[in-house]
């Protein structure tokens, strides 16, 4: 068996959601067999943070959770300016893994001061976050990160595999999918049948309710959350939480241009609107009815 890889988990401006999401990992004993969590801020482990910081120990993964800032008035840990801690640890880590949208792009908390609060390499979609350049960073966005996205990336690196990344440095195996893929409302999307109101199993949430599934990169509806569900399966629109612009404004409304919604990712306006027009011109009776009709 190959040796264990070591992890130090560091938090910037965060809600702890990525830590708690990570703790939902189904096969934790298997994770623990391959990795040593040298330090995690929430749980009782063996190492003392200050001794780790003051040592010259190198380690495999620095996992960053939360938005970052060079401004010590905005963030400090252990009575030290945060940048001192981050710079010291980053120099000793083989890989830096940004767990969640805050560490990747700045996320929700960036909105307070986008000049000073950013992700590690990005501020929103712009390159140039906490660092201008760094070649050992992987972004695993999401608000929160899915435990499988995080652990499976770590395991692949542990196996010495090359992890293919997209333009935002996100693992392609996760982020080449769209949240739309595997959505149970797909047929309603194909035939342009809108969900009349929330709280029902029928209809697509893309047209009126702000769903960003067709333009959000993530395999949520392939691997599901908590091994069972997803936002769209619980009848709520995808909020686009894996994207650099999360959170957009008016998350429960579909942004329209001349009463037309935005087109799905990578589909031209001409292709989408032509097809949508045709699909909409048919009235598919089955899709207008309840999925389960007790009176049938």
């Amino acid at each position: 068996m190959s040796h264990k890889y070591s992890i130090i988990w560091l938090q910037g401006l965060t809600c702890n959601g990525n830590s708690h999401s990570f703790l939902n990992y189904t096969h934790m004993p298997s994770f623990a067999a391959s990795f040593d969590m040298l330090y995690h801020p929430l749980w009782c482990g063996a190492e003392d943070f200050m001794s780790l910081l003051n040592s010259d120990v190198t380690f495999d993964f620095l996992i960053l959770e939360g938005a970052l800032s060079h401004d010590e008035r905005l963030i400090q840990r252990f009575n030290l300016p945060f940048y001192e801690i981050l710079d010291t640890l980053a120099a000793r880590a083989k890989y830096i893994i940004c767990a969640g949208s805050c560490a990747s792009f700045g996320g929700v908390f960036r909105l307070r001061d986008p000049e000073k609060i950013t992700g590690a390499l990005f501020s929103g979609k712009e390159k140039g976050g906490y660092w201008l350049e760094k070649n050992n960073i992987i972004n695993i966005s999401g608000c929160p990160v899915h435990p499988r996205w995080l652990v499976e990336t770590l395991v692949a690196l542990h196996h010495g595999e090359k992890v293919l990344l997209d333009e935002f440095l996100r693992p392609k195996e996760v982020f080449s999918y769209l949240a739309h893929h595997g959505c149970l409302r797909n047929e309603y999307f194909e035939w342009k049948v809108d969900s009349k109101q929330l709280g029902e199993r029928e209809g697509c949430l893309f047209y009126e309710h702000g769903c960003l599934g067709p333009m959000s990169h993530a395999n949520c509806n392939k691997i599901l959350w908590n091994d069972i569900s997803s936002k769209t399966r619980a009848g709520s629109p995808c909020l686009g939480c894996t994207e650099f612009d999360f959170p957009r404004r008016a998350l429960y409304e579909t942004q329209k241009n001349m009463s037309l919604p935005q087109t799905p990712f990578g589909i031209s306006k001409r292709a989408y609107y032509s097809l949508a027009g045709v699909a909409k011109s048919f009235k598919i009776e089955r899709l207008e009815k309840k999925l389960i009709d007790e009176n049938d």
Partner: protein
Amino acid sequence: MKMTKEIIERIEGEATLELEWENEQVSFAKIKFFNYRGIEEILKKRPLLDALALTPRVCGICSHSHAIASVLAIEECYKSAGEALHITQKAKDIREIALNAEKIHNHIKWYFFTILPELKRVGDTTYAGNAFKDKQWFQAQSAVMQSLKMGAHFTGQWPHGSFVMAGGVTCDPLKSDLISAQGCLDAVIAFCEEHFYGMPLEEFLSFDSALQVMSSPSALSYGIDEMIKHGFDRLGRSFDRFLALGESYRYEGSLKASKTTVLGADIKYVHESLQHTFFEDKHKGYTYSKSAMYKRNYCEVGPLARLMVSKDALMRDFHRRFKDAALTRVVARAVECAHLLWRTKVLIDHINLKEPSLIPPKKDIHSLSGSGIGVIEAPRGSLIHSVVVHQGLIESYDIITPTVWNLGNGDKQNPSTAQKALIGLNSFTKADFILKSFDVCSVCTTQ
């Protein structure tokens, strides 16, 4: 005068505890929270419903609680604008199941990942911790996961699920979903019976004496023995004053208690103070945590408060013996968890799936102006969301979290609940544990 400053680690977030010492005893304590994030500011001028997506991001461990408090505040806005929304019993039940899943998981996580290892650390400062190592840690992690999976049948995901909307909930579960959720809940109950309580849930819930709990071998009775060994059956007492503003199936309305006397409470007497914060004075302030008071008094909120106002027989017996010591506070979370497991089983069994999940408001949200307050009992206590909306846009949003109630800062003449519990202690190790007995959530505090 001697003064020490120590970091409080292994809580939700981080805090600094500054202690003043006289004659080897703590004479005063300052509890400092940094790393403010500004969600209340971020929400200003955004469309009202964005609060449903953004307020869960206040806290990774109680995101459902924030979502529910937020939707209640929004529904009150409709009411203040003349449209009282009807929320079906089904939607209310689903909200309660989601909240219970969050509370159950929180209490298990806190007891097995914080309290047990911290107690070991009090006895042996070189203790290397249990995380990712001990068999029981993995079993507790699995129970935590099952509890959240149970909830995710209704909420889509945890943390940061979206499942509430003005007028009800967005999910519309099937009978098969309920059966699957019940299966998850049964796995959590099995864990708690075997490890937490050491006996069937029903038997534990029938107890009315602390001795019954203490005489059965379990993680809970082990923890109680350890706490007694270190003196936490006497230490950590505060004002013996409790408050539960949110509703519960175990009591009617909002209540407060002074020792065992229970009286009605009203949210209009809640007062938020900026004293000692950077918001009040950039230079003299020392924390980002606001403080909350009821009729100018600091009160304890959380599981112990809820059980005291509901006159729970077992908790009253613990209280009779140990008053509001750290031990009583810890046991309250275990006892509440048992009640919630039982209650959630009943809810899932009885939910009426024929009712609509959501009845949408008639009024166009873009023209909605008004104000509303949403109050719920979150894992750590009363959580208040207060919003003012003008033409569909948020004018102001104010959040009072449970940790603000318990761990705000008063002054020497009028210390806060946690400060009072710390005064008189003779070691930092004990102070550290007592602070943790409140289940500190620094991220909620610095929202």
